[in-house]
């Protein structure tokens, strides 16, 4: 029984163990407990690249980090306050990330000579003073778990596997969390295997009781609920939110959705998720490759469905040619790129923002495509709907950028009221649109809306609108919309500019940008896009807390840029752009606005740490301004 309960604003905890140790489940459950309790939170799972790297090795370590707080937080946290390490590899792989004074809960069971050797520990770190600067709780979690479940007659191996639930119980106790939800979860999950269920529940309870009854921990903690708006919440990852956004786009437009996809990390879960929702008129097609996947999506769009394809960078590269076809045929299409570490196969399980320029320019010819990005796991929902809105309204393929961090990271989501979501109007063509001048009419597939420049979407099955489209240049301007192949030089010039202008006009449909500048007097603007939203926001808070002024603006639309962006950039003495690449947005902004945007870049396969980033920002904020002429 703990003598003291200390109140904290925030805690970062990391569960780490072998891939087989169930750390992702432990993290998920603790996240759920924190969420239900009312904390704000943000998570960062970290998987090994191998399916099952050899047991006990560094590459085999799987971890899950959770940041929870009594206020609204923006990142999964830089450095864990608490590390739960299930074996020597987990300890070694994560130690460097811990701040001095951090708490380490370690399962001593696997600290055998053999396991220590595997990871290159000459001496047992639990026995020398290498962990002196941390608060270490070395416990035989495995042994305690086996003991706790012995009544169920499991094999030793199966019994030992309940150690993750023991750890969950212990940590739950430490932060005063209720394990009832997790018990229910286990009951549901192992409904068909009662022994396993009961053993897991027993281990969970034993862990909690261990904290409560032994005097191992002198202090337990409480992190009060965060003040959040009333409503119904759930925890959600970016890939799930993005999938739900696609389901919503189908419902809001009244269109069936066809996802053509070829599995690839970290995008596969979108295929997995959508394949569960066939009763929403969603079809999923696992294609033979990425090209066939987008091909099927283009075909589906031609047939009056919302075609979607989801992949990661290497898959986008393969889809380049087919995206060009969608640009040329002006068909609605959503291409999701869940970015990962590149180039080539790169670092498949890590995050990066390095496909922005590929998204904009990775096609032959002048092939303009709108590009938008999601900024947080929950925002993936709205971003998917926005991608569909643009695709359907403007009859264009749209690239929706997410990344590995958003994809697998989670945070609480205020579940939207469906009634409040905006409808999307497919506006199918239903009758001939062109007067032949001889009293009869016919259908011109490229006769455009004079405002949006969108062409009509005439779906097979509609009588009288039979037409042919294709990848060759055609006469398809506002005046000459018959869409027949044209090799006329002037027509081509007009068409190239027209396709560009159509995309540009999307900007006219966007709301003004929101610049976050509490002081109203910042001289430095920090601009970002995509998943850096949280870290940039957290870093700005720190800079402000240190007494400096800084403004933040974050872009959802990367092509076209919002109409007011140039004006905003020019308003500041200095513009800084943190990115998880070598400065791709910076280049685009410099080219477009001739503003000396300064990049801050990291390409480590990990999100920016708020601490390091705030130091970088501070350098820019406090730098003496150059003399202006």
């Amino acid at each position, binding site marked *: 029984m703990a003598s003291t309960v200390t109140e904290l604003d925030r805690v970062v905890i990391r569960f780490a163990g072998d891939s087989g140790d169930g750390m992702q489940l432990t993290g998920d459950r603790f996240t759920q407990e924190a969420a239900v309790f009312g904390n704000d939170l943000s998570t960062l799972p970290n998987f090994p690249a191998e399916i099952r790297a050899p047991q006990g090795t560094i590459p085999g370590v799987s971890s899950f980090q959770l940041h929870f707080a009594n206020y609204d937080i923006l990142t999964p946290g830089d450095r864990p306050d608490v590390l739960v390490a299930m074996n020597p590899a987990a300890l070694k792989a994560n130690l460097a990330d811990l701040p001095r004074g951090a708490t380490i809960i370690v399962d001593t069971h696997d600290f055998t000579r053999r396991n220590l050797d595997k990871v290159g520990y000459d001496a047992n770190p639990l026995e020398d003073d290498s962990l002196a600067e941390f608060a270490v709780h070395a416990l035989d979690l495995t042994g305690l778990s086996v003991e706790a479940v012995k009544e169920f007659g499991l094999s030793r191996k199966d019994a030992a596997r309940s150690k993750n639930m023991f750890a969950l119980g212990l940590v739950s106790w430490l932060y005063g969390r209720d394990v009832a939800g997790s018990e229910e979860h286990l009951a549901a999950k192992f409904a068909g295997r009662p022994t396993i269920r009961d053993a897991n529940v027993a281990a969970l309870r034993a862990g909690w009781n261990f904290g409560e009854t032994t005097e191992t921990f002198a202090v337990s903690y409480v992190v009060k609920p965060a003040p959040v708006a009333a409503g119904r919440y*759930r925890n959600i990852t970016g890939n799930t939110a993005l999938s739900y956004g696609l389901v919503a786009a189908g419902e809001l437009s009244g269109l069936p959705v066809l996802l053509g996809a070829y599995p690839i990390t970290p995008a596969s879960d979108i295929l997995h998720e959508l394949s569960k929702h066939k009763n929403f008129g969603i079809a999923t097609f696992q294609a033979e490759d990425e090209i066939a996947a987008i091909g099927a999506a283009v075909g589906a769009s031609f047939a009056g469905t919302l075609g979607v394809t989801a992949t990661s960078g290497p898959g986008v590269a393969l889809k380049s040619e087919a995206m060009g076809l969608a640009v040329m045929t002006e068909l609605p299409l959503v291409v999701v790129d869940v970015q990962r570490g590149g180039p080539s196969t790169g670092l498949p399980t890590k995050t990066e923002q390095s496909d922005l320029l590929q998204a904009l320019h990775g096609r032959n010819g002048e092939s303009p495509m709108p590009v938008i990005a999601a900024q947080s796991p929950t925002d993936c929902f709205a971003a998917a709907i926005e991608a569909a809105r643009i695709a359907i309204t403007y009859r264009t393929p749209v690239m929706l950028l997410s990344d590995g961090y958003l994809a697998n990271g989670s945070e609480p989501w205020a579940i939207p009221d469906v009634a409040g979501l905006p409808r999307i109007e497919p506006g199918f063509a239903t009758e001939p649109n062109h007067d032949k001048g001889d009293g009869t009419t016919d259908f011109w597939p490229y006769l455009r809306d004079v405002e949006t420049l969108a062409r009509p979407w005439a779906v097979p099955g509609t009588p009288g609108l039979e037409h042919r489209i294709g990848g060759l240049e055609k006469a398809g301007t506002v005046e000459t919309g018959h869409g027949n192949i044209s090799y006329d030089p002037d027509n081509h010039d007009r068409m190239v500019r027209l396709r560009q202008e159509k995309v540009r006009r999307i900007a006219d449909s966007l709301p003004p940008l929101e610049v976050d500048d509490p002081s109203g007097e910042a001289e430095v603007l920090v601009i970002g896009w995509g998943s850096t939203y949280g870290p940039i926001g957290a870093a700005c808070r720190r800079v402000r807390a240190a007494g400096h002024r800084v403004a933040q603006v974050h872009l959802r639309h990367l092509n076209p840029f919002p109409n007011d962006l140039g004006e905003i950039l020019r308003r500041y003495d200095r513009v800084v752009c943190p990115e998880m690449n070598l400065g791709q947005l910076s280049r685009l902004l410099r080219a477009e606005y001739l503003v000396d945007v300064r990049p801050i870049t990291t390409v480590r396969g990990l999100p920016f740490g708020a601490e390091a980033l705030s*130091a970088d920002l501070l350098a820019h904020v406090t730098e003496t301004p150059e003399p202006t002429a």
Partner: protein
Amino acid sequence: MTTVDLPAPTLTAKDFSSDQEVRWCPGCGDYAVLKAVQSFLPDLGLRRENIVFVSGIGCSSRFPYYLDTYGMHSIHGRAPSIATGIATAREDLSVWVVTGDGDALSIGGNHLIHALRRNVNMTILLFNNRIYGLTKGQYSPTSEVGKVTKSTPVGSLDHPFNPVSLALGAEATFVARTIDSDRKHLTAVLAAAAAHRGTSLVEIYQNCPIFNDGAFEDLKGPRAAQRLVRLEPGLEVTVDGRTWQHDPTEISPTRQFALSRMDEAEAVPIGVFRQVERPTYDDLTRSQAADAVADRGRGRLQDLLDSGDTWTVPGPSATPDPTDFQEEPCPS
């Protein structure tokens, strides 16, 4: 083949001709096939608007422009994928793919074999002129070994595909072969292909007078009688010294495959090699969707969003000013 019955309008070949000028070389075999298809389409008893032609790139892939149906002239080799999307999205359409030996078997080979094994509802017309026409005469994956072309000035080296053998090895349910010069045979094969539910592959021997003239000359005119074997159900055939009665509906493809190897000897079989029933990918997709609705009801978006572990925060509570907080001590 589409399963959705719509009142059959009375149309003629002319109704299926678009207003676009046909632009193949004089004497190109593609003309004959176009005429045959235009004349045959009315027999489908379908409305024009329920027919979609998708093609890749190549001379033959211009085909859709000349038909007054829905159509897409897509990119090189990808027509089967696009058609898969169309067929999976819509059960009421009759989906046709027009492709060449380069389009289908070179760059598009993978999509072709996957369409065949999946058995997606579409009829694939493979115009085999054993040459790349549009790019002005390079050898193709069906060109004979030793072919002298622009890209192989001292003869090509690679053993060609036999499209029928390849299709049978790829689990096809319908495979046929016909020839541009025999309108009647062509039409009959088209009719069988269109009637088949699933992926039908029709290889059409097509003469390219410009870059590969006379490739099938042997099979035309007076010599045709000796060189061609016109497959019909029940026809007695002999391959490798073994004789049997041809049965395209036989489930095992082994004897049909044997037939496809006949050309290695003397005679070239044309007609339907294989025509077996197997559920189609798109129908199965639709029935999984129907089952899902039957089991769980039509999805309700709000329910989906509300699913999983949720919690409710009661009463309105002011959101505090985020600048009041900082996540860790400030670095400076």
